[in-house]
């Protein structure tokens, strides 16, 4: 368990350090769409934090960092629950 907490801390520190270096260029699919002149349509569902930003926080680094942390713990909790459910003997 201790090892996993250490790994998680490493992941989060790595995230905080790497985030400002992350590229804002369009990704492969976005480039393909742009090249072909296909625009993005309005999403059916915008989510609570569209494009990993908290609408209430102005600092872009902090906004994305917090959105990312929120997502990380959400994924962590759900995957843990999935793991528990999978290893439960029926």
């Amino acid at each position: 368990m201790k090892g996993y907490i250490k790994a998680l801390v490493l992941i989060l520190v790595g995230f905080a350090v790497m985030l400002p270096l992350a590229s804002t260029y369009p990704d492969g699919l976005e480039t393909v769409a742009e090249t072909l002149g296909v625009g993005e349509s309005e999403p059916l569902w915008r989510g609570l934090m569209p494009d990993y930003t908290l609408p209430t926080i102005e600092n872009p680094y902090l906004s994305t960092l917090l959105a990312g942390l929120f997502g990380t713990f959400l994924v962590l909790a759900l995957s843990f629950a999935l793991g528990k459910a999978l290893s439960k003997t029926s």
Partner: protein
Amino acid sequence: MHIPDGYLSLEVSLLMSIVSASFLVLCWKKAKATYPKSFASLLAVSSAFVFVAQMINFPITYGTSGHLVGGTFLAVVLGPYAAVLSMTIVLIMQALFFADGGISALGANIFNMAIIGGLSFFLVKFIAGNSVQGKRFTTAVFVASWLSVVLGALACGLEIGVSPVFSQVGGIAVTVPAMLFWHTLIGLAEAAITTAFITQLHRLQPAVLNGLALLKEGAF
């Protein structure tokens, strides 16, 4: 490679949802039979790593970026079926909370990244054979992770290419080559990162590589 809303026709959306749902049921059953002991912590931290890694885009070239998908990474750490489920959680959260990948494209995105990614385990197995360390294993991880991205891009190119928005501008004849071109390059970065992480884990914490253990046992 996350497809947004509006790119897929209703038929493609529905078809991919049915295909992915069927795979997920199968993976759930298989994963349940595969993991007798609790591995919830490993699953949780691995999924969290992939979620975080997918937020860090790296520049490729000509103003285009890519990010780690992490399918082969998860496959070697968790084994194929749990890897599919882990990536599916990441994709659902991205669509629900961050508008990263459209809700209507979730089935397609799960197929392109979670299912192809997780099942790239069998590519590793095919290439590595019985050797679970050394050059051949490293090569297997490299090639499988590259292919997982390229095959995902191929699927994505087909899905958008047959849908109206893209069939108006040339359809699969242009979407497939364009997707393959970019993801051949992005896949190289995926392969380099995956190989580096797996090699280090293998050196430092070999016990966490469940997928590798399954490979060794010849489980599937």
